[in-house]
């Protein structure tokens, strides 16, 4: 009699085993599917274009409606910034122009460049185009970094339409 109570207690104390077979089934199928779609490099793109001839109508507009085209000249020593617009007077365009020197460093001052573009965007919110004109010796990686800095700044859109062009003349 005492023996049967002892046996009962033992069966109550038996460990409950978790059946992991169904979860392993799900994991196996999911992992296989994800492995099939796995890529070792994530390719993304920056949309750009080369300049083509087009028509433009000169229309006078208010300051906040002015659409500027920012010209970014990538030189060996720095970045020269200027602007073009059919809607703005020459004085306004001259005020926009500036230069960011590399100052003996190996990197371009892209953070200053980006901050300046943010200010421009605030003043001329309808502007959305930047023309990048690199010198012949500028490497592709620098061009891409400059395009990045011109297009976005901390999730705020600056000049998303980028045109890349060689120097004329």
């Amino acid at each position: 009699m005492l023996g049967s109570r002892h046996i009962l207690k033992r069966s109550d104390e038996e460990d409950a085993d978790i059946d992991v077979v169904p979860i392993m089934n799900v994991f196996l199928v999911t992992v296989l599917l994800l492995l099939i779609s796995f890529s070792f490099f994530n390719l993304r793109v920056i949309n750009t274009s080369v300049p083509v001839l087009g028509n433009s109508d000169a229309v006078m507009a208010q300051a906040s409606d002015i659409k500027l085209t920012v010209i970014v000249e990538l030189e060996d020593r720095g970045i020269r910034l200027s602007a073009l617009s059919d809607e703005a007077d020459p004085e306004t365009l001259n005020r926009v122009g500036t230069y960011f020197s590399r100052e003996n460093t190996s990197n371009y001052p892209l953070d200053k460049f980006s901050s300046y573009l943010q200010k421009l965007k605030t003043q001329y919110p309808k502007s959305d185009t930047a023309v990048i004109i690199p010198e012949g010796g500028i490497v592709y990686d620098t061009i891409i970094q400059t395009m990045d800095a011109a297009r976005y700044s901390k999730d705020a859109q600056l000049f998303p339409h980028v045109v890349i062009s060689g120097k004329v003349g």
Partner: protein
Amino acid sequence: MALGRRSKRFTPPKLIMTSMVDIFTFLLIFLLVSFSDHVARFSIDGNISLPKSATKTDFKENIRLVVSKDTIWLGEEVIAQINDGTVKGLDMNNPQGSVLYQKLIKYRKYMDQTQVDDKDKYLILFLCDKRLSFRTINSIIKTAGMAGFPNFQFGVLKQ
């Protein structure tokens, strides 16, 4: 003293799955984080080092123009060699004479005939080594622009 035979009950061996579940969990989390719904189904030369960018735009696989330090591919076909930053066979005074221009013109005519109404059908996916100078790149993209393909998708790696 009667010694009875003790009957040995056969207990099936237990498979310890804890380690395997651990590994599968880590593998699953890693694959989920790096999941991409847009898989690049082409290979590019191992010598090409693409620049990195924070852009999130996905690519459209149209015409693929790949430029390494010494070779240019249009699709899977080698069309020119690059020597010291100069594209052989590409004279900027007469770009129409180059293989690149002629191949792109053929593509353009073919696409014009297909009558597919897609505004991005004249888009070139441009994959270029990040160490190449703009002088080299400019001659290639200018020629492509003259052939009727002024719009590009510059391929970059996700930062």
